[in-house]
């Protein structure tokens, strides 16, 4: 059974206009599920049980069907994430160019393993599959930005600069 916590408070979209705009772009309500999930995750930081319920209500389907969709995609998170998501590419080029060393560096520095979040909710570390920038390996994606050809020193500077 899914380990998701029982929803506590009802999730409400902060910007109903955006919701309406999303609905206007699709032929039927159910098709808007993915876009609504992205919008909710941008607002909430992750997809909580109450987000699932709210979206299921909006698109008029069962929460389990929304959960089916959420769990399929790796960019939706069902647990609270840090403010900054450090996504280290671990596919071939990055791997041979020292991606593992970058992961170890973060692990040593903040005592978090891949998939974990620091206690102060500042960083979440994760390993991801190919980011499509093999020519500039190793690559780390922090939130929505790529950082290419990283060394431990540059990585450190980068991490320090984040609030």
């Amino acid at each position, binding site marked *: *059974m*899914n*380990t*998701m916590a*029982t*929803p506590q408070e009802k999730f409400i979209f902060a910007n109903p206009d955006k919701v309406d705009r999303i609905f206007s772009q699709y032929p039927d309500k159910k098709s808007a599920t993915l876009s609504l999930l992205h919008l909710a995750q941008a607002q909430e930081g992750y997809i909580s*049980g109450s987000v*699932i319920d709210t979206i299921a209500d909006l698109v008029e*389907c*069962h*929460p*389990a*069907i929304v*959960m*089916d969709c959420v*769990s*399929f995609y790796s960019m939706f998170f069902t647990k609270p994430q840090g403010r900054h998501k450090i996504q280290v590419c671990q596919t071939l080029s990055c791997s041979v160019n020292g991606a593992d060393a970058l992961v170890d560096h973060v692990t040593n520095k903040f005592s978090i393993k891949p998939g974990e979040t620091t206690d102060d909710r500042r960083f979440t570390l994760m390993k991801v599959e190919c980011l499509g920038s093999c020519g500039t390996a190793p690559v780390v994606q922090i939130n929505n930005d790529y950082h290419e050809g990283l060394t431990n020193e540059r990585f450190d500077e980068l991490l320090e600069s984040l609030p």
Partner: protein
Amino acid sequence: MPLLKIDDLEIEVKNGTTVLEAALENGIDIPYYCYHPALEIVGSCRMCLVQVEGMPKLQVSCNTFVGEVPPERKVDGNFDMVVQTQNDLVIQERKNILEFLLLNHPLDCPVCDQAGECYLQDYSFKFGNAHSRFDEDKRVRPNEYLGSQIVINHNRCILCSRCTRFTREISGTSELFVDERGYSSKIAALEDRPLNNLLAGNVADICPVGALLSTDYVHKNRIWNLQKKSSVCQDCSVGCNIDAFYQKRKIFRLNPRENQDVNGYFMCDIGRYGFHRFEDLERVARPLFKSNGIFSEISWDTAIEKISNKFNGAEEKVAGVVSPFHTNETNFMLGRLIKGIIGTFPHIEDEEITYPSGFRISSDRSPNKRGMHDVCPSIVDDLASEINDKEIRVIYILDNEIDKEIDETWNKILTKMDFIVVQAYAMTRLAKSAHLILPGLAPFEREGTITNDQGRVQWLRSVLPNNGESRPDWEILNLLYKTGERFSDINELMKGMGEQFPSYSGMTFFKLGDQGLPLNGNLKT
């Protein structure tokens, strides 16, 4: 109509038929897991791959449709489609698919409840390789409860998604979903929304492997120890067709049996687990006579004599209580016997439930109310007041249901009676109030016909053997008739019933068969 050639067989099929359906209808065996005639096609298991001439890759036959093609595109100038289901390529592909499906399978058939009726086992035996090339560690996950009655063994699951489609399309409750993807996928339910609808038991039936298990049956028995008899569910007036699996005197499980005119492929959990309430009952095995408040065993002859003495000369002062839980034959016999008043106890009504697929659980939770009224047209509306008006002192009751309460009105009536005969299979509250108890048969021991609320007559077959000296209910009533008026067997009785009630004329068990027949004259032909 498109002309389809499967292996050596040339058949005309309807436009839009799938290759798999055409093959199955014509006796060609194509293995499959995810296909189910009641569910949407997904083509996810890949087991039904066949070679279609002119198509570069093998095709899933469940999702390949046959249609008419223009003359210049016909194969050999004649066929709209030519399919190979038995050639070397197809057979090799089946081996490959099975090897994939078994990668993480624990091969624990000796402790698996599905063993003996498992498609994975059967097809592996028939089509699979004896050995796997997979040397790595198997993925192992613990069992999980999806609902109170259903447990999933993830290791055995082949992700055919029949169960998730069932909850979406048939029950409309959508509790199940495929969690995550790829190697991590598994069937799951949200923690706060478990699989607890009244059709949940069906997911264990439609699971082609041993992944979904009913907690009611898990590790209770092996399928090859059980015998199977087709019967009809007696827990509501829909009359779902069922297969009862039993060993000696004990039923182990009930499964739905296909009948498109009644229940489709499914049954509800009320009926599925309903047989348990007939277990561990205090059974009545011999006729019992009450003197000074204590029951003592008497012989059948004495019992019949006692009743005849009470009836003789006072026929008009005897009331008979027929029951919607008994067969048409039994009710007919009592209705014909009693010259005073015929009535029935107030009804057990519950919630009526209809699912999006049209599957129905009737609010009338008795199997044969319609039939009872058909063969006993003289049933009075208010039995209690009629008994008081006509000063009835002798009453003959067919016991209703084991957990039936006797309300105040009836308590008063029963205490006023000089003589109460109850035909019962268990020591119910009603039976305890009787002066004479005649041991009849329990629901899964009875044989006869019942009529569902749509007017379909179905053959209720006995599953378990009789208990002690108990006798079929119609036979007991037969003994109360004068020698010349008795029926020699149940077939004669059905003939006699048909003569009196033309809508039932011409009915025989043989004609009703497995699927039953609607009333309205169809029985005659």
